């Protein structure tokens, strides 16, 4: 209990709501959920969603409906870094299958799973709009493009280090 935005997050939340006309505060739901996901460990718990519902004066079910519709909201806990690898047509013809296999093998997890140390989650996603720079994946806000096995190694090492420094 007691999940709440801190002052900075609250200021941001208010800025989001202010974009819409009065009484249309529900429009801020998607950005508010993004903010909540970033603020509370990268996923949306029921408690978080209920909190957002109360902030926007809407019913909790309205939040659950929306949160479960969009693929970017995690409704279950995830690792510190989520590798979202694109597997759609243009990436597939550019060799995304090999990259996916390589990540699976290197991290020893299947798509949808998190590594035992809780650092990485692997997700297979559909087209991310980087077809010209395929194969590619998204990590947080960043796109990692033109992937090769060597590049994947570098990325994994980089994030391992980041995770270690955070602890």
């Amino acid at each position: 209990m007691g999940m709440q935005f801190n002052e900075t997050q609250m200021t941001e939340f208010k800025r989001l709501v202010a974009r819409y006309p009065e009484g249309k505060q529900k429009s801020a739901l998607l950005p508010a959920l993004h903010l909540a996901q970033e603020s509370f460990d990268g996923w949306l718990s029921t408690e978080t969603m209920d909190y957002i519902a109360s902030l926007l004066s809407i019913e909790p079910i309205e939040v659950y409906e929306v949160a479960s519709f969009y693929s970017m909201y995690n409704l279950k806990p995830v690792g510190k870094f989520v590798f979202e690898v694109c597997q759609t047509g243009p990436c597939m013809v550019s060799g995304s299958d090999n990259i996916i296999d390589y990540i699976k093998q290197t991290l020893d997890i299947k798509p949808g799973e998190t590594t035992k140390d809780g650092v990485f989650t692997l997700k297979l996603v559909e087209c991310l709009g980087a077809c010209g720079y395929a194969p590619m994946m998204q990590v947080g806000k960043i796109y990692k493009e033109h992937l090769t096995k060597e590049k994947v190694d570098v990325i994994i090492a980089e994030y391992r280090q980041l995770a270690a420094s955070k602890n």
Partner: protein
Amino acid sequence: MGVKLLLDKANVPGIRTYDVYRREGGYTAVEKALKEMNPETIVEEVKKSGLRGRGGAGFPAGMKWSFIAKPEGVPRHLVCNADESEPGTFKDRYLMEFLPHLLLEGLIIASFALGSHDTYIYIRGEYAWIPDILEEAINEAKANGWLGKNILGTGFDCNIHVQRGAGAYICGEETALIESLEGRRGNPRIKPPFPAIQGLWMRPTVVNNVETLAAVVPIIKMGGDEYAKIGVGKSTGTKLISACGNINKPGVYEIDMTVSVEDFIYSEEYCGGIKGGKQLKACIPGGSSVPILPANLLLKTAKGETRYMNYESLSDGGFATGSMMGSGGFIVLDEDQCIVKNTLTLARFYRHESCGQCSPCREGTGWMEKILMKIEQGKGEMSDIDLLWDIQRKIEGNTICPLGDAASWPVAAAIRHFRDEFEWHVNNPELSQTSNFGLQHYADPIHVPA
């Protein structure tokens, strides 16, 4: 070299910032529009330009603007559709990432023409770093008097807000986008009423693609008539093409729609030929939902004429032997690509992105995916190919929104043009797991009846 109207300044260092953009002649179109023109004359210029919506449907933009209802006392809204999600398409991302002020300039002019005081950019959630770029640009524009209250002393107020989606292809459909912008599930609305009458918060709304709005800037600068002289026929102006797949130089190109498909693929100015010196097998010329064409039908029409990169030529021959310009996502497949597998990934994509509201799309997309998977794994039967054909036929045209069509067309075209590759998978279950059907006859010159 073709004419460049949108990306002509893309390589100027620092063009992303207001100062450089302004120094390079930016915001002069806003000055012209707001000071010398009025909303009616702006709509008139856009109509004259022949500009067609660049999101995929190709609907004339000026016409769309003229449909907006103007009831007394009800605010109107312009919404910029930046939910670019069609596989193969990444041109809007390029525009927003490198030329944010060009989009803003187009947005201010369009907002003025439509009377929108609060304009929204709905951007796909995965482009998570671009809202920061856009908001930075908005702040710069505001600081310099191009946004906010009483712009240029004309009494026109306008604010632009950026909203991120959260992972749903369907929100590229304009009514689903509006639903999403209202904080709901991205379920497309049943039309009519159209957004021009009841859109965002049931107010009159126009939804335009990023590239469409950016194109308003050169139209205002040069005038609609001059703009219409570029290009050919009803394909006026320039078009951004995002090229990807097995080519040497993937990327975003601006074309004036007089370039041939062959030149586009092989010339150094554009794609630079097929990667690794391989042969061209097939191409999806307008984003993954448009019909795939084998090499021979791509480069030449069924009549044996050269095919060009424009709306009319790409759709020459209808769906039987042609395709569509769509959103300009140009996906090239070389001789090593398996059409069945490619179609399977697209079917999976559309199943994943179906909102689930109407039954043909919700149930049919998953069914097609399962059958394609069966064929791809060498477990298919001949009757499965006919079944696939029948399923796509029953989805197409029978759904609430065009996603049903978008899911059907790739399957239909793959069977239409590559049926023997499907049959090969059925007849050679073991072989199909280890080797590839290859190029076969798909690049052979087509027989043109005299």
